[in-house]
């Protein structure tokens, strides 16, 4: 383009969302949370890499990995990653449902967002209750 066109005097311009008066709604929340949990899940991926390296480096390294992983701080990190991962995963299912064209009407979309969000929290609780109640994970102080 050699020369910019002269804009007409009263060109229609869409306004960007005004953040301070942006009303909270469920799908907005779900969108923000999907982004945050996507990034947080990267921590889980890195912990997977650490697990593989600990295995590759031998029993000593693996003991070190287990000590960190089962420490109170380690457990809190695992819990956080599992929560973020489950929220991102059920959020991904929600996206796939929407992409197929289902539950896209505002009310249904809100319901779906709520179901996937609370579903992820329930899955996380079930996972950790199972881990503790079977004795697979114990808190060592």
């Amino acid at each position, binding site marked *: 383009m050699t020369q910019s066109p002269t804009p007409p005097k009263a*060109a229609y311009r869409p306004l960007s969302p005004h953040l301070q008066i942006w009303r909270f709604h469920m799908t907005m929340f779900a969108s923000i949370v999907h982004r945050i949990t996507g990034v947080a899940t990267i921590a889980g991926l890195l912990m*997977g*890499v650490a697990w*593989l390296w600990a*295995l590759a480096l031998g029993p000593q390294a*693996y003991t070190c990995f287990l000590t960190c992983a089962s420490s109170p701080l380690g457990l809190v990190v695992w819990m956080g990653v599992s929560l973020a991962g489950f929220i991102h*995963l059920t959020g*991904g299912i929600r996206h796939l449902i929407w992409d197929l064209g289902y539950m896209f009407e505002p009310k249904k979309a809100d319901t779906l967002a709520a179901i996937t969000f609370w579903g992820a929290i329930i899955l996380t609780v079930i996972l950790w209750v199972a*881990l503790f109640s079977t004795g*697979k994970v114990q808190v060592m102080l």
Partner: protein
Amino acid sequence: MSDSYLNERSAKDWKKSHKHGAGEWLAERGTSLILLPLTLWAVWSGYQLAGQGVDAALAFAKTPLNAGLIAAIFVVSGWHMFMGLKVIVDDYIGKDGTRGFLNLLNLLFCLAVTGAALYALFLLVRS
């Protein structure tokens, strides 16, 4: 409302992505579709291995099917993560140079994560 000014320009000068975009869209959905069963399998496997020692973990990871699935998870999530982070960078960073630089870092990071995982897997499967 009149969009005439927008229409006049948009088709020619703004819509640079009209020939691609579908590929990225499909890749994002494709990777999430594949990651869905893979991550559930990973959680299930982690659950089974929890509380066990190095022998159980090593036996698990050396089983060909498991090794293959571990490799798949890191390849697909590396790709998924790159696309996801790229969208975030593209959303928030307006300056071309900065954006390009951050996306290069993003690419290197994702390749490094996947590469590090595959290399460790290779070492432990051979050990």
